[in-house]
């Protein structure tokens, strides 16, 4: 096969089948014309080195074929790139926080020592980070090829920009963001995150949580069922495995529903009553979960107490003695989760009745 033939074969391999023959025929004519002109200039037939030089001047087959492609010539284009970068930053931030918190808890309960926790945290962050960036890039690739940009890119409001301040990744930005999400103004600031910004932040957090739950995102080199082994004679590993078995699919359904609900909230921040009703439903699910964990789950024997007084005594003993067993910590977490959810539901009920969000537009 001639050099030109090999070159054209390499170009053709990168071209869409429908246009392949047409394009390579045109390129062949261009190459042969160029070679004739070069031979005329040199006053002699071309050597193989001369032919190679002409083909090199045409350009690498990948570059040549790439110019014929229709559609965007990039994975994530210049318009979408800032959004891609923002999504990657926020996801990595959330993942870093979760990874570090998990490592701290594991160290505190004695599951791993400090050096293991540090090593596993770093390796987990790197592998999870790469997975997150891949998912963000795939999402960007799909969005780039849609005919219409999503609403959140074109129909935005200035008051929704609080979330985007967080991605500045400095302590001031985080303080503004976290202060806004807790409903308390940060120091010197009266600005609170808008419903759209909070909904988007929640959606991103839920996506990260869902990917971790189904095992696609290894955060902290830990699955829930791997958390803890036998501590003080209690096999927490078995208990958590039983919890995961019971909750695996319900948690997935919850995450998916929550992500869909958050995206709806982001798109329709003015639908106060609908989002309040949604918050009530999700709150009811969380209350059900808390009650199940308290009364009927494999964790119940460790955390359930028969009265508020017993609860207070147990927490008081832990504070006084400084002996916070994992069972006591879990008891407090479940109780707090129940109380916080009931509080959130009361706010949602108020919004459902009044049709307004207190303190906002």
């Amino acid at each position, binding site marked *: 096969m001639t050099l030109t033939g090999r070159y054209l074969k390499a170009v053709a391999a990168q071209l869409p089948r429908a246009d392949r023959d047409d394009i390579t*025929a045109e390129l062949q*004519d261009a190459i042969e014309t*160029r070679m004739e002109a070069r031979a005329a200039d040199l006053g002699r037939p071309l050597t193989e080195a001369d032919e190679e030089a002409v083909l090199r001047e*045409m350009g690498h087959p990948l570059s*040549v074929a790439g110019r014929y492609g*229709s559609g965007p010539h990039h994975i994530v284009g210049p318009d979408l790139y800032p959004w891609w970068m923002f999504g990657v930053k926020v996801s990595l931030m959330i993942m870093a926080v979760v990874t570090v918190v998990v490592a701290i808890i594991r160290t505190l309960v004695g599951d791993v020592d400090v050096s293991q926790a540090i090593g596993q945290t770093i390796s987990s962050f790197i592998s999870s980070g790469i997975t997150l960036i891949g998912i963000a890039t795939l999402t960007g690739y799909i969005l780039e090829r849609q005919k219409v940009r999503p609403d959140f890119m074109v129909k935005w409001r200035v008051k929704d920009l609080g979330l985007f301040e967080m991605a500045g990744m400095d302590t001031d930005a985080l303080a503004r963001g976290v202060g806004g999400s807790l409903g308390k103004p940060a120091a010197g600031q009266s600005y609170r995150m808008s419903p759209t910004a909070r909904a988007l932040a929640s959606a991103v957090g839920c996506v990260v949580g869902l990917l971790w739950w189904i095992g696609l995102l290894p955060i902290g080199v830990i699955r829930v069922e791997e958390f803890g082994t036998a501590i003080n004679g209690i096999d927490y590993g078995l208990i958590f495995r039983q919890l995961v078995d019971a909750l695996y699919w319900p948690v997935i359904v919850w995450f998916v529903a929550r992500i869909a609900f958050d995206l709806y909230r982001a798109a329709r921040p003015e639908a106060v009553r609908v989002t309040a009703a949604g918050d009530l439903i999700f709150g009811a699910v969380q209350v059900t979960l808390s009650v199940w964990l308290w009364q009927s789950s494999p964790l119940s024997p460790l955390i359930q107490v028969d009265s508020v007084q017993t609860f207070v005594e147990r927490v008081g003993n832990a504070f006084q003695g400084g002996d916070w067993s994992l069972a006591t910590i879990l008891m407090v977490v479940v109780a707090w989760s129940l109380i916080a959810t009931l509080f959130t539901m009361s706010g949602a009920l108020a919004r459902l009745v009044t049709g307004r969000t207190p303190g906002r537009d």
Partner: protein
Amino acid sequence: MTIDNELFESMRLELRRGSLVLAVLARLREERYGYTLRQALSADGLEMEESTLYPLLRRLESQGLLASEWREEEKRKKRFYRLSPMGTSMLAALTDEWRAINASLDKIL
């Protein structure tokens, strides 16, 4: 003050890029094939590599601005391009736009 050559080259290419389509459409008021079109543009002071020109010709054709046909000439099959009716209208519109931009720039420079 001397200018950075790399920066100048990148800005020069950006400046040129916008004019290539107009140049190609203008030269195809007369039917040509790729090589002769490239030579004509080169004689006008607009060098363009085949690897840029041919994909541009295909894109303009897919946009309905050019028409093409394969014909045998000098014992080789060549693809001849010419302006389509829509291409002729587009050339006129772009020429007006170009002249307006030129007039504005002349006032500023």
